[in-house]
């Protein structure tokens, strides 16, 4: 049954092509495009060692060349975590701006120089002398890091205000029990126990991290930097440099992609600030691609999953153990382990579950959030397991999913065990049915080419993400957004918000929501840049697929207050009660109008009313507030991938895909599709291309910072445009702005899983490790032939 009610909108659901003009003309400004007269250019000295003691950093000779330099001795002793989205009591802190005692990964920043040109800064950088002390062998794999003989990367760190000891490089862990799994497994007729590895990948957002900092006369700073949250950057800089927040102004500026890599304040930001404060001049710092690759990546996840099921397909118990290897700093392993538990727990009705998660430090670049925040990593084991169990039960994989998914009315662990809410809108059934119809699931066996070198198969997988991190009770994750909405004197509207747009259309959605509430043409609403921490109220961060549900939720809440002010004033002009007035969009006039009910010819435009308020010194219709959403509704997705495996070359191509998404009301139709299409490419990268291993001896990246060696999907990796179908479920989220929920991270959750299940369908090999490169495929095919072509597992 379709849940969507009849909702008619004036502006939502239409496509406009005006918001991105600056991006096609080259006029859009990103942090790296900011230039301030008299600015110095900065470069960073980075560690060539993975784990080594720093005895001394001497830049005397570099400063003699006229450069401004900073080293560990110059940065504050403040130990911080660059991500402050979680509450302080649940935030691990282990770093300073530069390490004071030792480096923990190759590429870790240890000093920096600023000079008139980048060239001069590099010349000066070469003169910096570093005296190294003891060096330890790099720990570059989970097994290395977990080994009892492994050198300690940390002795102790802080959790909130408390100092905690680190043993065996265990950064943190989380254990959760629901019900009784021993009893649950006793009830099961079939038990499967499998291990999976999803690799570490690099975000490879097109814009590398950068910052431009201008020191101000009052001791404050103005800053342009790549970030998903200007307020958190300001708060952190205030803590590190002891500057009142009123004197730190972080400008909101367009991001050249992020995918989670700027949830935390990026490592270059405080370095740029420290240089600018010392130089008392503006400083610009733009990192190279290689530097960026050492700076952030996703968390790799190893999962052991044991699941019990009855013959009729009812799940009885699941035991999920995960291990993370997190790199040299613990940015967010603790909340990540909680979220992985949540994604796992909310996919299917396990009935009884046990979750055990452990995170280990290693000598690699620090892992951080990446689109999906652990969901693609745990979705791969779960969705493979569901297919494994369906096969054992002799049940259709779609039927098995339908029987066990967590849906409407059930509890959803939005962002881990502390953020729980009830599901109110759910398009899972519709997406399974419609997707199966579009991909012709019932004719799947006809695809099989038993004897040729090309083997075909189709796989299904489903996933979701939360829309934000709100729950009935405030949990471990801070979640609220603010906005100012102002009707200008000509009837146009300014929306002033710290909400970020990563490219997915969040700002366009925000402008549409304000336009829909105030019945103003979309073109007359500005949500543009030129705002900053000084002019906006707090917004926790644009992460967790919260842009539309939480950020635009706040815009709607505030716009409704402004609408009330407008109608109250209009009532005085019409000499009527506000509830007897109608606010409507008049497309012919290109204006919002107000008229007494049933008397549309007596209208006044919003422009007339706003200007009347100005001329009569009444005031401006403006409101500022914040909103905390008390739910985090899941945006579900269901994908059907068809693959072709060339058994001679080992190459896997994707000739056809059907992608279904459930976002409630769709605000930006084409950009919404764009989120799904873009995520699909990222997922195919995860499935068959991307990996970012480090060398065991040197601790350096094997790809040497080269994109072509890291390998990302290019134009030829995607299916023909005619063979890609994207559709949405017809749902309405009652707690969302105009019925909307998110999509961004959900879109990636099940891509690699549907790909892996399709590969199994094609060649009968269950791959437990990603990526499935041609080399991996060929080896697995050879192994399979050796055992007489039976279905098998590849680890």
């Amino acid at each position, binding site marked *: 049954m379709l849940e969507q009610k009849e909702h008619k909108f004036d502006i939502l659901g239409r*496509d406009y*092509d*005006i918001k*991105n*003009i*600056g*991006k*096609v*003309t*080259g*006029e*859009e*400004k*990103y942090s*790296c*495009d900011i*230039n301030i007269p008299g600015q110095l250019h900065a470069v960073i000295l980075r560690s060539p060692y993975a784990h080594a003691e720093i005895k001394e950093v001497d830049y005397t000779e570099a400063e003699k060349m006229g450069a401004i330099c900073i080293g560990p001795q110059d940065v504050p002793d403040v130990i911080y975590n660059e991500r402050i989205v979680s509450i302080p009591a649940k935030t691990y802190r282990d770093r300073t701006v530069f390490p004071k005692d030792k480096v923990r990964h190759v590429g870790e920043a240890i000093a920096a120089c600023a000079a008139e040109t980048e*060239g001069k800064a590099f010349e000066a950088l070469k003169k910096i002398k570093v005296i190294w002390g003891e060096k330890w062998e790099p720990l570059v794999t989970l097994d290395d890091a977990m080994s009892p003989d492994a050198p300690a990367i940390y002795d102790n760190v802080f959790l909130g205000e408390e100092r905690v000891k680190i043993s065996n490089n265990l950064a943190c862990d989380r254990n959760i029990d629901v019900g009784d799994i021993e009893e649950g497994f006793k009830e099961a007729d079939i038990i499967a126990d499998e291990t999976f590895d999803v690799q570490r990948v690099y*975000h*490879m*957002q*097109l*814009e*590398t991290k950068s910052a431009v900092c201008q020191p101000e006369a009052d001791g404050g700073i103005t800053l342009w930097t790549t970030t998903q949250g200007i307020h958190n950057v300001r708060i952190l800089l205030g803590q590190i440099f002891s500057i009142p927040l009123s004197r730190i102004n972080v400008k909101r500026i*367009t*991001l*050249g*992609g*992020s*995918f989670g890599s700027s949830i935390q304040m990026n490592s270059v930001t405080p370095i740029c600030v420290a240089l600018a404060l010392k130089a008392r001049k503006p400083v610009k710092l*733009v990192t*190279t*691609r290689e530097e960026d690759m050492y700076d952030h990546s996703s968390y790799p996840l190893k999962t052991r999953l044991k699941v019990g099921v009855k013959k009729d397909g009812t799940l009885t118990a699941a035991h999920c153990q995960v291990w993370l290897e997190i790199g040299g700093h613990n940015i967010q392993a603790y909340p990540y382990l909680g979220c992985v538990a949540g994604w796992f727990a909310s996919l299917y009705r396990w009935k009884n579950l046990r979750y055990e998660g452990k995170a280990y430090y290693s000598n690699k670049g620090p892992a951080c959030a990446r689109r999906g925040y652990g969901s693609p990593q745990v979705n791969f084991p779960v969705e493979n397991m569901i297919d494994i169990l369906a096969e054992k039960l002799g049940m259709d994989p779609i039927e098995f999913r339908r029987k066990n998914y967590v849906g409407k009315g059930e509890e959803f662990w939005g962002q881990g065990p502390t953020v729980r809410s009830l599901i109110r809108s759910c398009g899972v059934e519709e997406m399974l049915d419609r997707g199966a119809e579009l991909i012709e699931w019932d004719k799947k066996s006809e695809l099989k080419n038993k004897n040729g070198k090309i083997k075909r198969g189709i796989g299904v997988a489903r996933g979701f993400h939360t829309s934000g991190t709100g729950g009935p009770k405030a949990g471990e994750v801070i979640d609220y957004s603010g906005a100012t909405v102002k009707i200008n004197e000509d009837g146009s509207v300014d929306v002033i918000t710290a909400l970020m747009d*990563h*490219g*997915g*259309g969040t700002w366009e959605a925000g402008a549409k929501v304000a336009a829909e509430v105030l019945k103003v043409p979309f073109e007359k609403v500005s949500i543009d840049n030129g705002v900053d921490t000084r002019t906006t109220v707090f917004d926790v961060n644009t992460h967790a697929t919260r842009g539309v549900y939480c950020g635009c939720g706040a815009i709607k809440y505030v716009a409704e207050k402004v609408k009330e002010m407008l109608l109250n004033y209009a009532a005085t002009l019409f000499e009527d009660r506000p509830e007897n007035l109608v606010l409507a969009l008049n497309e012919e006039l290109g204006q919002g109008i107000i008229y007494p009910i049933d008397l549309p010819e007596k209208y006044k435009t919003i422009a007339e009313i706003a200007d009347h308020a100005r001329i009569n010194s009444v005031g401006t219709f403006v409101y500022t507030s914040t909103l905390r959403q008390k739910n985090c509704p899941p945006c579900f997705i269901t994908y059907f991938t068809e693959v072709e495996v060339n058994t001679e070359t080992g190459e896997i191509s994707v000739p056809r895909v059907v992608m279904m998404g459930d976002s409630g009301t769709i605000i930006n139709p*084409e*950009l919404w*599709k*764009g989120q799904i*299409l*873009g*995520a*699909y*490419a*990222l997922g195919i990268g995860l499935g068959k291309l991307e990996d970012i291993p480090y060398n065991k001896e040197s601790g350096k990246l094997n790809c040497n910072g*080269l*994109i*072509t060696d890291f390998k*990302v*999907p*290019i*134009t*030829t990796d*995607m299916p*023909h*445009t005619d063979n*890609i179908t994207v559709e949405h479920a017809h749902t309405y989220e009652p707690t969302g702005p105009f019925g909307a929920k998110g999509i961004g991270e959900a879109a990636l959750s099940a891509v690699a899983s549907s790909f892996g299940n399709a590969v199994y369908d094609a060649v009968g090999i269950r791959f437990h490790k990603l990526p499935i490169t041609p080399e991996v495929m060929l080896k697995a095919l050879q192994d399979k032939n050796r055992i007489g072509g039976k279905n098998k597992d590849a680890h």
Partner: protein
Amino acid sequence: MRKIPIKFTINGQQKEALVQSNELLINLLRDELYLTGTKYGCGIGECGACTVFVDDELVLACLTLAVTVDGKEITTIEGLAKGKELHPMQVSFLKNAAVQCGFCTPGMIMTAISLMKENPDPSEEEIREYMRGNICRCTGYTQIIKAIKEYAHNMKA
């Protein structure tokens, strides 16, 4: 280091500059002429974000020495629109939601225009093949390919 005087035309305007022998075109464009629409994505010719035209030929500004543009005509993304009127390829990108974060977009549009000059009626496979040097991490390329197809279709009509 001795600086070398060069003269060139940039987006229709004549300019002179003093450049070092090892200076790259991308730095001349971004840091001296403040044409920041040409983007740095890798610095070594892997991503295509810095694609510009030099004498109608597609080049990567991060792999081109500034001295080599002496006497030549350069077109960057800023030079495509005629006043307020966008180039039809820019319009097609906007109409097809082929733009997300926008960081790859300038290079994509320059490469797509070059393709159209060489092959006004390309098949989808030919478009994908020609565009393979331009990396986009947001769109999954589909809407970009559609934008280019639509442009070709409109030009034919």
